[in-house]
């Protein structure tokens, strides 16, 4: 399945939006470097709409209790409900458990059109 979901300029870097590929609701994310990523618009935890969540950064793992180092600004999608963190530049994997991830879609471009397709 393949579908043009928007024009590039419809989504500015650092933002997310909902869209559909056929009947499937997706969340389209654009990282601050301008890249596009698309995932199922349904949290793998309890099904919250990910497009209502927040694109943000995350505290990096550290060896020092009490140390906060905020990284990956604009690359972490946090669920609107319980706030689980998904790394959108790493196949939508959960930060706490990289074995679990959001459903992935391919993103390609046709001129200015953003084309999202289901993975084979």
């Amino acid at each position, binding site marked *: 399945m393949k579908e043009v979901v928007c024009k590039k300029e419809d989504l500015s870097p650092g933002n997310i939006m909902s869209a559909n590929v056929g009947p499937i609701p997706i969340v389209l994310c654009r990282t601050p470097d301008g890249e596009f990523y698309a995932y199922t618009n349904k949290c793998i*935890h309890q099904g919250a709409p990910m497009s209502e969540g927040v694109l943000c950064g*995350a*505290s*990096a*793992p*550290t*060896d*020092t*209790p*009490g*140390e*906060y*180092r905020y990284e990956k600004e604009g690359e972490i999608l946090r669920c609107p409900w*319980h*706030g*689980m*963190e998904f790394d959108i530049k790493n196949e939508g994997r*959960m*930060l*706490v*458990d990289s074995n679990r991830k959001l459903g992935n879609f391919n993103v390609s471009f046709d001129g200015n059109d953003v084309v999202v397709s289901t993975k084979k």
Partner: protein
Amino acid sequence: MAASKQQKRPIIDMDIHERATYNDLLPYLDNPWKRYITDSNWVQEKHLPYPIPGAAGLDRADAKVPDGRPAGNDLSFMQQQLLDDVGHEAGILTGAGDPSPSSMNGWYEMAVALATAYNDWVIENWLEKDDRLYGSVHVAAQNPESAVREIERVGSHPKMVQVLLPIDNRPWGDPYYHPIFEAAERYNLVIGMHHQEPPNYFGNFPRYFVEWHSVMPNTHMIQISSMIFNGVFEKYPNLKLAMIEAGFTYIPAFIRKMDQQYKELRHEVPWVKRMPSDIVKDHVRVTTQPVDELTRDEFLKFIDLMGSDEIVCFSTDYPHWDYDSPFRALPPLGEELEKKIFAENARKLYPKLPERKATQ
């Protein structure tokens, strides 16, 4: 009679309360501390608004030393009533709450002196007089520097196996206390935690003792959570924690609760890098006592829900009123699991306990 009752399998008892009276400690204290006790009648503050309303207060009514001294004050009576009768392989002494230097809310210099006196007393009068007994280093944890010095002073004694921290109203995972954990790890000592008289929790007591005793696991959960989420086990990967005297049935629910919170709130504690349930499996052990009466099936379900049969370790809590009998407290669990719970889990936990004897 003792021989016929002997426990069939090795038994390592993780909670035996020997009792130091203030009189016992006087020879081990310098002045002015001694004088504050003899002249000013100093005794450590107590907090509970009620007595412990067992048949004889805190202790088993039959555990009073025959000459009238309080329960737990006499080694030979303890040998007769507990160690020989049951057939203990080993038992770990945890003190009797008095003194509990780390529980003091002021006058930390006295706490330091008491910890030192207690350790010298227990080594001389108990650990060096019975092969089976092992001890807990008391410290004044309010002052971590002094606690580290005390661990360095007595922690290498071959029969000191853990550092004891009371569960009161200080959550011990706070980085302020981490030097204590560093020293414990360096000396191959476990951190043992045993409740003292905590409000559960914070600030106030339930109206009745029966409530206080029912929600005791709360205070243990607070400490486990404090140790895990403050990153203690990430920082000291060889450190082990023994949670003494809240039973074990709270663990299956609690590890799930912590895992769920961690999945949702990891970013707040980025120094924690594993699921709390995995940290518990690797680092935390809990005692059976005070056991909840369970059928064999119920017991096995709890073990199953913990995902490990190495977390639970047997303890009697002798000579206290809520003592658990090694013969009657647990349902039959099968050879393998009984071996682990009665001895092998504790043996694995404490690196300074003796190896298993070939005949056992």
